[in-house]
């Protein structure tokens, strides 16, 4: 009974926050709702007995991906108002197409029936005596090693791609120069001021910026 209550609670919050991700006006709010959606999905994983997957979801998606999204949203100066232009115009068409697709998928899933082999696989999927993390690792590094290594290659390609498309050699490579950083005296970087209480903050004296 209590399990069902929790299940419906997590699912409801998940669905609502997923909807908010795409409807929120402020992109930062969208990302925050996305994090909420991930957390609820993780809770559902825990309820299904997949604790390891839940942790991975939180660590990877909330810890890395969503924060990265947040960075991108904040750093890129994208005019979201301009992006929304035409939203009203295409709304009816988009809604129609989406509704038709949804109805079709719903109809098909209503009549979905797994084959005999699937029922067999579902009945025997759990290996006795192994935790889920251990069984995932067991499969990943033996049976699916080939795919696992290829996925690594995929990440290498993504990295090369990002560097090839963005790194500009020559003009002003923004490289870190440790020697120069260490050479800077404190006086160049730090100014100590003692503001008098109640007098407000006086503007700092203009100083040449050390890059």
């Amino acid at each position, binding site marked *: 009974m209590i399990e069902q209550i929790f299940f419906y609670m997590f699912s409801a919050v998940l669905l609502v926050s997923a909807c908010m991700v795409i409807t929120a006006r402020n992109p930062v709010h969208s990302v925050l709702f996305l994090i909420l959606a991930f957390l609820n999905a993780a809770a559902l994983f825990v309820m299904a007995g997949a604790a390891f997957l839940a942790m991975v979801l939180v660590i990877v998606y909330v810890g890395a991906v969503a924060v990265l999204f947040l960075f991108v949203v904040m750093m890129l100066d994208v005019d979201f108002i301009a992006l929304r232009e035409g939203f009203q115009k295409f709304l009816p068409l988009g809604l129609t197409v989406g509704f038709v697709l949804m109805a079709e998928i719903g109809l*098909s899933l209503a009549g979905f*029936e*797994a*084959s005999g082999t699937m029922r067999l696989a579902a009945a025997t999927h759990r290996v006795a005596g192994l935790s889920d993390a251990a069984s995932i690792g067991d499969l990943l590094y033996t049976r699916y090693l080939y795919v696992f290594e290829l996925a690594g290659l995929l990440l290498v390609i993504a990295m*090369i791609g990002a560097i090839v498309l963005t790194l500009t050699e020559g003009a002003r490579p923004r490289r870190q120069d440790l020697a120069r950083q260490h050479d800077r005296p404190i006086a160049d970087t730090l100014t100590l001021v003692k503001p008098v209480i109640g007098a407000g903050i006086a503007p700092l004296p203009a100083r040449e910026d050390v890059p």
Partner: protein
Amino acid sequence: MMSVLPVLFIGLGGLVMLLAGVLARRDHSFAITAAAIIVLALAGRLVFVAPDGVVLHGLLVTNGFTRFADILVLLGAIGGLALSIAYNKRTGIGRFEYPVLVLFAVVGMIVLVGANNLLSLYVGFEIQSLALYVLAAFARHSLRSSEAGLKYFVLGALSSGLLLYGISLVYGFAGTTGFAGIARAFSGDNTAMIGSTFGLVFVLVGLAFKISAAPFHMWTPDVYEGAPSAVTAFFATAPKVAVMALLARVLLGPFGGMLVNWQMLVEILAAASMIVGAIGGMRQNNIKRLMGYSAIGQMGYVLMGLAAGNQAAVRGVLIYLTIYVVMSLGVFGCIVAMSRKGRPVEQIGDLAGMAAEDPRYALALAVFMWGLAGIPPLAGFFSKLYVFLAAVRAGLDGLAVIGIVTSLMAAAYYLRVIKVMYFDRGEPGFDQRTVGMNAVIYASAVATALFILMPAPITEASTYAAHALMSAGF
């Protein structure tokens, strides 16, 4: 272990070259491209070292069919790289990452061709696509190239999503991602079940995106036009072969029991592609866009062969793909050679007067255009002949009629290029061609023109490969 050799060799070769390129202070893009060509050629030898059979817990399969497709992929990639050397240097995008990305894309294609499980299929698909997205945008100072990369990426991501959704439905139905298990689940009374049919449709759509079959072709002309010409040459050959070979294996292997379900879909794809390719190419003035529409139409003919779904059909498809790769490399060799004072030109009108200035170039391009139009006795005629025969024998008469009408229509725009070269006045004044370009252009032209004298090696190999596919099941 021996079966993974080609993938391992190319992948490690790519990584070593990446390291060499990063560590070297000077620009070594020429040496690295040459090394990449050698790696691909050696991999072609390793393809034959790999023994037949299913290995790695059913993730990878090697047989006569996959070897044939591997060799075609490698051929396309080698041709594309040979064309890229001079072109990249001239247009200022000659960087060592280019051959490395091509090598990684080839790894993806070979994984794709030999995939025996939906997991390895998807990973191969993504490796190939990701490398191709970056290559399309490789000329990053060019707005059109960036646009091509972005368009390709967005639509490619969409198609990956559809493919994954289809895979999940198939898995939900069959309980396994292995091709053998899926074939077992989809045999007998199970074929008409709704879960399997839906999964099949989504998988088919995802793959149709990649071979630019209409109605999933929207990206093709823009990407062909925007991407650097050397990249387009690579796009037009290797990935098409890899995905088409995979499509044949998936449809006849795991989904072989559902022939009645997918035959109609493939027929529709084929008819739509042939029509779009024929009509869309009519009004193009940019030769790369023209080739984009040409590719759509040509894929329609291949799909027509595939729709027949028997051994003769697979044989026709393989012969078609082989000849298509050779002719495409030739045409793109000619396109890459179109430049004035180091700046590429792409309009068909720029070719005016070519016959008087450079008869050999004009004759070679004319041979390719005649070949693509399917005029006997050139190779393109025979490739069409085999797929039409397969389609008619399988009772797909309507499709064959559409094919004949559209190839007549398409002949109009292929012949227009020849007319511009031979009968219009003008002074092309193109730059000197390099050895790499000449090698690709003349080798392809000779192969296209003289195929009729010695068709046996290709037809025999195709027969063997088709037999290997049909007898293995997949």
